[in-house]
């Protein structure tokens, strides 16, 4: 044990293997989805968070079950980290009735309201105010939960960002705005779209804390989010956490990535979040390489099985078309 691993109070050492497995589940799930899209086995579009697993897993690791999240169009990782099963997710992408949305939402709208996942969102910046509203419920009904609002660097340029952060700050709502800065808003490099280095700096204009963490380092992310969650739970209001990370894949399924270089991609690949996590955990003696390999294999198997589950699930009948429009 060369260094003492610092964990936030909300995360126990015994949970780390599970978090490691979540990282692989996300990776394998998305690679599988990528493959199926490429083969034309599933239709529509999808946004992959390969390379960003640590920010999803690290941030959600510090939440309690009662806490809630709002997700983005790039939300598979958030769902899995918040406890969604890959079966239900894969079935949703296959458009089957056993999917999280009975096949009506698809990749961009996976929600698991019971587990506190208020849903992915196809509108960039659509989650800010919804998160604030969910936090308002917690505050008014004294339910004690906090809301983690994921957003991207691109969404921070939406007007809703400003309106919701201002509102959350004046009402001291229990919400944490976590920016996964993956360097690109679709094709737009963050440096060309934002005139400051750190999006976290925008917190100053709302009189709330803003902090930058290493989004590829699951431990750094969880430690950074931990403070913000405590603050929110204590009624001190919202924070911004900016997790610097990198979108390894293109924006969506049809992206030639002409706006960036192979060299840049390779450089970030050296800091692959799963590899980094495994290195630390082996170094800290939390598991062996062999155990790490076993977890990886388990995750792979689970994703393989989810494909079988999805394929064997029924398609919705046409009756379902007009169902669920109104409560």
């Amino acid at each position: 044990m060369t260094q003492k691993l610092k964990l936030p109070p909300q995360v126990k050492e015994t949970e780390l293997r599970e978090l490691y497995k979540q990282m692989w589940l996300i990776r394998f799930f998305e690679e599988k989805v990528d493959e199926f899209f490429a083969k034309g086995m599933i239709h529509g579009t999808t946004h992959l968070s390969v390379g960003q697993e640590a920010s999803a897993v690290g941030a959600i690791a510090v939440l309690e079950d009662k806490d809630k999240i709002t997700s983005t169009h790039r939300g598979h990782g958030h769902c899995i980290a918040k406890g969604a099963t890959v079966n239900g997710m894969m079935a949703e992408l296959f458009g089957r009735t056993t999917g999280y949305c009975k096949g009506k939402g698809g990749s961009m709208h996976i929600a698991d309201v019971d587990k506190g996942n208020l849903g992915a969102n196809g509108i960039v910046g659509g989650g800010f105010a919804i998160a604030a509203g969910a936090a308002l419920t917690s505050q008014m009904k004294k339910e004690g939960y906090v809301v983690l609002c994921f957003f991207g660097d691109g969404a921070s340029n939406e007007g809703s960002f400003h309106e919701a952060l201002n509102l959350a700050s004046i009402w001291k709502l229990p919400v944490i705005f976590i920016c996964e800065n993956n360097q690109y808003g679709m094709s737009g490099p963050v440096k060309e779209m934002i005139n400051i280095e750190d999006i976290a700096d925008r917190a100053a204009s709302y009189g709330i804390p803003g902090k930058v963490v290493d989004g590829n380092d699951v431990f750094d992310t969880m430690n950074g989010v931990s403070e913000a969650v405590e603050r929110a739970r204590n009624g001190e209001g919202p924070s911004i956490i900016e997790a610097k990370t990198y979108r390894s894949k293109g924006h969506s399924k049809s992206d030639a990535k002409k706006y960036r270089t192979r060299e840049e991609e390779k450089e970030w690949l050296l800091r692959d979040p799963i590899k980094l996590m495994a290195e630390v955990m082996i170094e800290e003696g939390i598991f062996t390489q062999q155990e790490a390999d076993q977890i990886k294999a388990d995750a792979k198997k689970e994703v393989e099985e989810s494909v079988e589950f999805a394929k064997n699930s029924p398609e919705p009948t046409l009756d379902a078309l007009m169902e669920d429009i109104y409560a």
Partner: protein
Amino acid sequence: MRELTYLEAVREAMSQEMRENEDVFILGEDIGVYGGAFGVTRGMIEEFGPERIRNTPISEAAISGTAVGAALTGMRPILELQFSDFMTIAMDNMVNQAAKIRYMYGGKGKVPMVLRTPAGSGTGAAAQHSQSLEAWMAHIPGLKVVQPSTAYDAKGLLKAAIDDDNPVIFYEHKLCYRTKSDVPEEAYSIPLGKADIKKEGTDVTIVATAIMVHKSLEAAEELEKEGIHVEVIDPRTLVPLDIETIVQSVKKTGRLVVVHEAVKRGGFGGEIASLIAESEAFDYLDAPIKRLGGKAVPIPYNPELEKAAVPGVSDIVTAVKETLNRL
């Protein structure tokens, strides 16, 4: 029975509901001590306090999204938009979020919220504060759209709207606010989707909404002197629409005039006319259906121009006579 103004009826419906149900609260701009742009919430903050009569920053995008988030997590928010024109700023949350969440999530979750907003011209507020945009909202599956014309209807329909588990857009016409009618003191509910025959007649059916109900009744009175018996129907809710009552009336009269203040082009009158043309009432039509709506022009400031931009009593009288070949 005592008389209340439309405005007082709206306020009473909210107050009674808030006394009964802790989950109901109001948010909006200047609704606190100011009492709202039109004074609808005047006095409510004194009874219910600033927690439940929530004054918001001028952030229509945030407050609409916050209402969605709060509704999704168990509250029953009433959102007051100062002018229905500002719907443009709240549009994303109503159209892309509130209306679709339940469907996208495969029937999980619900968004029980009411967006109340004053609409219409006649106050000299000019182009950006006088529109009638209800057809936009009626176009969106997942929303309900209510347009009461009398104090009695306003109170009963607002209770129904608050009790409804879906997002409801509740249009209050500014010129209706000072109109009076008998309103019972106790709480009562008028089901959404039930038209009201405001006056029975045999010669021509007028379907009118909001302030045009009053103008149509005035026109009907004038026509009665010439022996023309007009039936005036107020659908009261556009979504869901009680088309059956209109069909039955048109089968009786054989003639239909549709009147709304909203711009005629693309207005909801076209929907009513089309539904009648498609219905069994078609074979009973003895004259072309007439639509009266606002001219395709922004609402002007000058009072005479403003009046000329929307249908008046004499326009309705003329339209009725035209359908009877009595001009």
